[in-house]
Each structure stands twice: as C-alpha cells, then as structure tokens.
C-alpha cells in the first residue's frame, strides 16, 4: 500500500530525487541549537491552542451585564470579549488549560526567540552567508512581540486595557502622523469601539500568517545555507558534521516538540497566569496597582518610567515624551540589530563566508559588546518594576527611579570590561568549559599563577570518532544489525551475512521494506 502510494507520487513529483537529499541532511549536535527549536515548537503550540480559543472567544467590545457562572462579577458591566474569556476559562472543558497554555506558550516563544538570538549573536552565527536569516529572525522577534501584546490585550481586562490606553498614547506621540495613525487604528479617539475586533483579526490571522511565512523562509535558508557548527569532531568550513534528518534527528526533534508541549502543559496546569477575573473588566477611569505588562514588553515599560520628563516644543508642534522611550528606542534597537552583521563587516573587514561558530571567549570585544548591550535592556526590564521594588524593599520610589536612571548608564559600562576580562582569562585557561577534567592552578616561585589540565583518567574522554560520509544502505544495514541483536529480518540477515549493507538494501523487495526490529 505504502509502496503503491509512494510510487504514484514519485512518478509525478520525483520524491526520490529531492527526498534523498532531505533525509540525509545533517544536523549538527549541540544543546544550544535547540533554542530555536523551542521557539518553533512554541509557535506550533500557540497555533494549536489558539485555534481552540478562537472557537469560544467573542471579539467584541460591546458592553453587557455579566450573568455568567463567576459569582463575584455578576451584575457588572463588562465587554463581550471579557465575558467570553471568563466563560471559556470556567465553562468550557479544558478551556482554562488551553488559555493558560496559550499564554505560557507565548511567553516561552518570546523567551526562546531572545535566547536563540543571543546564541546566534555570541557565537557569531550571523556572519556571511547568514546575514539575511539574521534579519528575518529580528523581524520574527518584532512580530512576535507585537502579536504577544495584541493577544494579551484581547480579554479586555483592567490591566490589558490600561496597556491599550498606553499604546494609543504611544501611537499618538509619533511626529507628523501619530494622531492620524491612532484614530485610524482605533476608529476614533480612545477608546473607540473597533479596537477589540481589529486586534483580534490582526492577532489570529494577519500576524500569524506573516510569522508563518517568515518562519518558513527562516527554515528554508537553514536548508539552503546548511547549518553552522562548532569546531571539533572533524568539523570544518567545508562539511557539516552531525546526525542525519532521518531517522535520528527526526526522532530527537519530534521528541523535543513533545517535551516543549509537556512543559507548557504542566505550567498551564499548575502555574496560574493572567487571572483576568481577579483583575476585573476594563473601565477607562479605573486603574490597578502593579500594572506590569508581559515580560517581553518590560523593557519598553521600564524605558517609559525612567525617561526624564522632557518634550520638544516647536512652533505649533511638539514631540511628546512617550516618543523617545516607546518609538525611538525600539526603532533604534531593531535597526541596529538588523544592521549589525553589516556594521561588523565594516569594523572587522571580514567579508568571508563562515560556517564554523566561534566560542564567545574567542571574540572578546564582540562578546563584551553583546553583554553590555544586553545588560542595558536588563536594566530597563528591572525599571519596569519600580513601584513593586519600592514597595517590596521599603525604599522610596524616588530612590528606585534614580537608581535605574543612573544604572542604565553605569551597568553597561561595568559589564563591558568585566566580560572582556572574563573572555581573556578563559582564553588562557586550557580546555576551560570544554572537558570535564579539572584545571589545576599552579603558583610559580616568582609568585605568578598558571593553569594546567589534570591528567586524564580512564573513561575521562570517550574516543573521538571521525565523521563518516553518510551512505544510506550502510546505515540501514548497521541499524538492522548493530542496533539490535535480535534482528533477523531480511535486511539484517543480508547485512550480517555479507558484511555490508549495500547488498542487503538492494535485496529488499519494496523500497519501504522495513527491518523487523523497526516495525
């Protein structure tokens, strides 16, 4: 049956031609390459749970009197969006789980994207020929932030409603076109009535479609350029060393999809997120304490908080305060991110192709710059909690604010030389972070210190195997024999009997004849 379908399709599509290349595609093995996979699989989970939610959510800001099953809210005026979110949380079976998984998954998605981007940056994976994929990645980050914010806004609760109000003010602050953009998007002056349905369609259709398209391009470029790899295990600029897509990588990566889903499900089960019934419905003149957005918006919120109260006044016009932290800062951030591969080429003069990744320590200034930049955004993130920190630490808000206003400049300036120093120390530490063997620090009679690696003990280092060019039949033969002692299928027998898998494979009757051990 499979043979027949395969043959029918192959005659029309030539699956065998391109398919062989694909199943033999090599994926290098390193834990840090899984970060992007977490992002990819979170997107899959977001789509799956999001479709479920969209079946029950009503994207309408029409005000109704709540009469649902959550008693404390009965009799309150709420929007249909809010009421339907409560209903899908409490009255739809597994609805709360799907909603919490969706929200957790969004946070994991953004987190994975950011950490994945840091990995690519610090290992210099963005260099030629991968500049284009870096740019696509930055755009995916931007779109993911936007879509996260939109989704977070949809339930129309008090906290997200305040966020929408702030976003209106930010749009309004853009020079020349701000007031037009704001009224066009909101269908009038705030709050308008169009924003929930519009946010909904952007959140569930427009942005996910663009994200899916860019994600496809992101992956296609990985196939086209082939994967980067770290040095060692025979990896060179001219090869890719690792495991083949089929079946090794396939098994691992799909297993990983389920592991990401498992973590998301357990978080959705056990850790409450965004309990909008506790926040209450959005009322424009109500406001809550500790108004913090989801974590990936924290840096913008922090920037809004620590920005001094400046505005630019021109004859008849002005540039409002919110423009600088909320439009200019992200604009500069993402422009610099996208431009970085080219800026770096300018600085280093290195325009060659690179397929081998660098260890961060081997490019100390690059690493230090990355760490300092990252610390800048960490400080901004911390600044988004000024009120909570002041309360928790029982210090004045004034002190906390000025602490962050100073730290935003001081911390990166401290982080840069610190990182530089650590990188250079590591360079001089033989095998530091590479093997599990101890480093022994020696003191010379003159008082200097140096480091040597301790003697190897048996079993310390497994034998390093040279990579072998992948050849299908041999792999099949080996898997049927070495992998399984009970193997007695036709392929296995042939492989053991003749000392090579090539003959075995060609003897199998159907193309999809599978060794018994595999069935």
């Amino acid at each position, binding site marked *: 049956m499979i043979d027949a379908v395969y043959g029918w399709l192959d005659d029309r599509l030539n699956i065998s031609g391109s398919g062989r290349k694909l199943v033999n595609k090599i994926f290098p093995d390193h834990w840090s390459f899984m970060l992007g996979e977490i992002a990819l699989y979170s997107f899959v989970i977001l789509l799956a749970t999001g479709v479920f939610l969209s079946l029950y959510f009503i994207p309408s800001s029409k005000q109704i009197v709540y009469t649902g099953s959550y008693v404390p809210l009965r009799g309150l005026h709420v929007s249909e969006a809010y009421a339907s979110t409560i209903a899908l949380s409490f009255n739809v079976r597994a609805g709360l789980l799907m909603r919490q998984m969706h929200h957790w998954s969004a946070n994991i998605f953004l987190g994975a994207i950011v950490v994945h981007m840091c990995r690519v940056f610090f290992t210099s994976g963005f260099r030629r020929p991968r500049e284009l994929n870096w740019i696509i990645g930055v755009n995916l980050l931007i779109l993911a932030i936007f879509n996260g914010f939109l989704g977070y806004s949809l339930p129309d609760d008090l906290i997200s409603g305040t966020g929408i109000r702030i976003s209106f003010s930010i749009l309004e602050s853009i020079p020349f076109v701000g007031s037009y953009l704001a009224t066009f998007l909101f269908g009038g002056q705030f709050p308008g009535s169009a924003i929930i349905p519009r946010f909904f369609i952007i959140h569930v259709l427009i942005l996910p479609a663009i994200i899916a398209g860019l994600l496809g391009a992101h992956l296609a470029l990985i196939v086209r350029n082939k994967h980067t790899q770290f040095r060692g295990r025979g990896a060179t600029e001219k090869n890719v060393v690792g495991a083949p897509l089929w079946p090794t990588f396939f098994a691992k990566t799909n297993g990983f999809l389920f*592991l990401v889903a498992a973590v998301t*499900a*357990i978080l959705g089960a056990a850790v409450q997120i965004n309990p909008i019934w506790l926040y209450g419905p959005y009322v424009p003149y109500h406001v809550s304490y500790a*108004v913090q957005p989801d974590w990936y918006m924290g840096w913008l919120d922090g920037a809004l908080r620590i920005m001094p109260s400046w*505005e630019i006044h021109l*004859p008849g016009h002005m540039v*409002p305060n*919110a423009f600088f932290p909320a439009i200019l800062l992200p604009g500069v951030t993402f422009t610099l991110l996208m431009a970085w591969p080219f800026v770096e080429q300018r600085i280093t003069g290195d325009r060659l192709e690179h397929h081998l990744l660098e260890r961060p320590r081997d490019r100390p200034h690059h690493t230090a710059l990355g760490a300092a930049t990252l610390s800048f955004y960490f400080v901004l993130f911390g600044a988004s909690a000024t009120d909570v920190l002041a309360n928790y630490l029982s210090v004045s*808000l004034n002190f906390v604010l000025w602490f962050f206003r100073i730290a935003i400049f001081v911390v990166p300036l401290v982080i840069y030389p610190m990182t530089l120093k650590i990188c250079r120390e590591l360079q001089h530490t033989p095998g530091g972070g590479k093997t599990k063997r101890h480093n022994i620090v020696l003191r010379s009679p003159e008082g200097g210190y140096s480091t040597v690696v301790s003697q190897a003990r048996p079993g310390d280092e497994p034998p390093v195997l040279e990579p072998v060019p992948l050849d299908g039949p041999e*792999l099949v033969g080996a898997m049927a024999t070495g992998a399984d002692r009970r193997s007695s299928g036709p392929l296995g027998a042939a492989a053991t009997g003749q000392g090579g898998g090539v003959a075995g494979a060609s003897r199998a009757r159907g193309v999809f004849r599978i060794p018994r051990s595999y069935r």
Partner: protein
Amino acid sequence: MSDLHGQGGRAGAAPLAPGIETVGPDAPQFQVAAAHPRGMERRVALLFIVGLLGFAGFGAAYWQNSTNYFLGLSLGVGFLGLGAGMVAWGKYLMPRGPFSESRHPLGPSVEEKEKFVEDFASRGKVALQRRGFLVKLLSLASAVFGIVAAFPLLRSLGPLPKKLFYTTAWRRGSYLTTAYGRRVHVDDIDVGGVLTVFPGDDIGGALSQTLLIRVGQPGENVVTEPSRANWGPDGYLAFSKVCTHAGCPVGLYQRLTQQLLCPCHQSLFDIGPGRPAVPVFGPAPRPLPQLPLRVDSRGYLRARAGYDEPVGPGFWERGGTT
C-alpha cells in the same frame, strides 16, 4: 563481525581517517550509542507507557470534567513520556555518528551567472526599450492604482483626528456627575476626599474623566495659580484624570502630601493652593489640565467652562508650551 553483536562494536575502534571509503556497517559510527541497547529499549518502552497512561489520564480527566490541575498534569505527563522516549530512542538507539556531508559553494558559477544575465537582462532590454511609451503608461497607471488603493485601505478605518484631540464633553455649565449618574453636591465630599466625575452626557467617558478633590473647607476659595482665581470654590479642585504622560488614569491621591500619583509610570503631581498639578517626579512632562468649577444656587458643582487645553498625552499638532 562478532563485536557487532557485542557492546555496540565500541571496543577497539580506532578513529578512521576522514574520506576513507572503507567504512562499513561495522564501523563504530554506525553503532548505537547505548552500551546496552536492550536495557535502553526497555527504558524507552517504559517512557512510552508512561506517556500512554498520561494521555489516557487526560481522557479520563476530560470525561470526568476534572479540574484544570489534573487535566494539565495528565496531558503534561503524556507529552513528557512520549517526548522523552522519542529523544532517548534517537539519542541512544540510533547510529551515533558522527556523519558528515560536504558543503557546496553557495554562489553561482561564472558561467551560470553570465547565462542568467544574458537571458534576463538582454531579453528584457529588448522587450522594454522598444516599447518605452507603454512602460511609462503602465508605471503611471500602477502609481495611480497605488494611491487610490491607499484611500479605502487607510482612510475608511477611522475619522481624521481634527478636533477629537482638543475637546472633551465638558462645557460651560456641565454638572459634575458620578460614574453612577448622581450629580455632585457641595456637601458630598469631606476635606481630603476624592471622586471621579464626568459631565452628565458622557458618564464613564475615557477622555472626560476628571478627578474632583476637596482640599479646603467650605467657603475657602482655592487658587492654584493667579490666572485661575475663581476655579476652586468651597475647597474643591478638579483636574483631568488622564495622565499627560501616557494617558493612564491618575488614580492615587495621597492626602497627607496632597499629591496625585499615576500608578502606571509613577508620575507625581502637586495639588492644592498654589499647586496646579505640576509634575514633580517621574516622566510626566506637563501639569494635568484643571477644570474651572463653580457652585450653583442649589449647591451643585458645575463646570465654569470646558478644559482650556487638550487633555492627556501630547501629540504632534498640539504645539504650545502649556
């Protein structure tokens, strides 16, 4: 051959020189990574069984309409067993490699490039240059389409801002009305009390929301600045509740210090005699607009006039320095 059936053929495996084609299925690269494949197989099987039980548990929890906790944990255990099993299968029960494939030049060969340029550029040149007039006409038509397409795409979305940003529903004589529709009487609030008020025709309005604060005794006329001599009768002051920073409701009144705090970004405004809601802390750049008040003959609080400046955050066309 015997070590094929032993411990994954690992013993005595000398590293093979790269590129040598004699690597056969008995090479260590083709052996599984697990030292004891049978044991690993049992473990993977166990993980799959755990996964199966987890999914079955989810089904049972769903059927019984169980709590979120059981639904999510059973689903999580299902995915965990399945995922961990598959990863272990791939990691320990498949050829451990490493395998390699070679990279090929990414750019085109000189010949490829030349041929493409020839086909594309020269063919196009001939086609276009001969019909230069048509090219211009086509560009013009496309440009006009682009412009007219932008109108329905953008313009229909919402009204032009025009006066929307300059006016609120407050006008001369508006009664100060609570969110529940009750007109505010001069005796309603004690000193130190606050109330959110709206004009009677825009109750709950996001832009017209106004904070009424009583800072003084009956009969005391509170003057925040000289030009607003009669705006604060009987100890009452009213300010726009929309923050001049990012538009949040400036909701927290600190009675002891006579200050208003915005909970979003912690801007602080001074209120009281000689204190016209000037920001003293945080990012807010401008004072909150003040609503002039009067007490009518029956003792109701009313607006002397609407706000004399746009409320809320700044925008490009706003201008001015107030």
